[in-house]
């Protein structure tokens, strides 16, 4: 299986075998990421880092992955200072940066930006989020976290919070459907999972349960995936507060949890999980953010042709 020169735009381009392969390579990378001693797998290679909107965590995780493997990072810097502020098209920026680098990681506020970039780039594009569109490396790191901290096959998972606009949960559901899963959805009605996605999952023989509260789901799920609820989604601040309070994870909410429950969150969190949960054996969100490094190491090595 060769990923060389492949663009990583959306999870929809991956079969189950391809996903499994990426996760296996990430497992090989994990000791390098953990030991912090570095390797020279990507020595002499340059990663172009183009972030047209801030996402510090994703950017740092890509840069850490590249640097730990001995590669170099070439960053766009702040957008106002660059030629983009002078009105250069994304197509031109990509053509120029492709000339300097072995792969480009792109974050852009507009949907379809990564697809467009792939049409103009002579090197692989890794989509690090395009507006409300795709963010495949987040999905890969979520899957990797589930694999390492729990199990992928036939997982009982609850997704809670903003299931309407949260693209990461849509993409995660899609990927989990390869492994068979029982998915419980917990969200306020105004942020519930779009019905097309639920229908789609049911067609793939995925059991979908809509629960009223986290307490209901917590007794049987193995993974609880929390997402951020954004204040801007609610016209009324009081309504936001009510929803935020009802979906907050505290040690008390976890009273009836299964022993092997793992809690995930894409971070940064606001008030969805109180810091008191961090000390419980259920907290996996900091491991999850660490796993972003080996998974990005794996993807970088694969698209640059270092591994088959």
């Amino acid at each position, binding site marked *: 299986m060769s990923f060389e020169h492949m663009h990583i735009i959306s999870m929809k381009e991956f079969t189950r075998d391809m996903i499994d392969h990426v996760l296996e390579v990430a497992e090989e990378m994990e000791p390098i990421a953990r030991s912090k001693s570095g390797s020279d797998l990507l020595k002499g290679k340059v990663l172009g880092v183009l972030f047209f909107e801030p996402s510090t965590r994703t950017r740092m995780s890509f840069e850490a992955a590249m640097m730990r493997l001995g590669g170099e990072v070439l960053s766009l810097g702040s957008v106002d200072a660059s030629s983009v502020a002078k009105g250069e098209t994304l197509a031109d920026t990509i053509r120029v940066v492709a000339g300097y680098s072995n792969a480009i990681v792109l974050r852009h506020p*507009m949907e379809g930006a990564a697809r*467009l970039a792939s049409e103009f780039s002579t090197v692989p594009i890794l989509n690090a989020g395009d*507006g409300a569109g795709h963010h495949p490396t987040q999905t890969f790191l979520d899957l990797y976290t589930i694999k390492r901290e729990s199990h992928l096959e036939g997982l009982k998972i609850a997704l809670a919070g903003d299931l309407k606009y949260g693209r990461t949960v849509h993409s995660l559901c899609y990927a989990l459907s390869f492994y068979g899963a029982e998915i419980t959805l917990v969200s306020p009605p105004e942020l519930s999972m779009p019905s097309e996605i639920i229908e789609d999952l049911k067609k793939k023989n995925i059991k979908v349960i809509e629960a009223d509260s986290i307490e209901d789901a917590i007794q049987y799920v193995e993974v609880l995936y929390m997402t951020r609820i954004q204040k801007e989604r609610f016209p009324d601040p009081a309504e936001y507060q009510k929803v935020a309070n009802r979906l907050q994870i505290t040690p008390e909410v976890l009273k009836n949890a299964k022993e092997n429950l793992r809690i995930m969150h894409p971070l940064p969190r606001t008030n969805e999980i109180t810091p008191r949960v961090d000390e419980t054996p259920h907290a996996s969100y900091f491991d999850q953010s660490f796993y972003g490094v080996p998974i990005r190491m794996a993807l970088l090595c694969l698209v640059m042709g270092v591994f088959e």
Partner: protein
Amino acid sequence: MSEVAKKEIRVQPICSGTVIDHITAGQALNVLKILGITGTSWGIVSILINAPSSYGKKDVVKIEGRELVSSEVDKISLISPGATINIIRDYDVQEKNQVGIPSHVEGVVKCINPNCISNSNEPIESKFDVNTREGKIELRCGYCERVICENIADHLL
């Protein structure tokens, strides 16, 4: 008077040009828009709206002295997948074609997602995959993946 004779009165046959028949009822004016036919265009254009047909109602557009190019036929197929294009030469139907529904169109429709990269100043044409669902046309943007299934005529470029 026979049914055939009645039709003859409504629209005269044309000498040479194109008859677009079996247009989805109500779409004739959008067909004219696609073809850039305004009141000041040259040539005779006849339009039938809500004409009776064996499948209920249909619209018909007859254009004297003009044959369509494929991009025009693509656009017509999106708003009226059942239409037929008859090319007339010397009062005779030379060719009769059902508009084929293309599987893919480029530069024909504008994406409805204002935040789609295809709506910015990039050097690209919009592109859509075309699907039919229960006889209706659905367009999926090749960039942002947003689906257009209603009022496609409003989004033609």
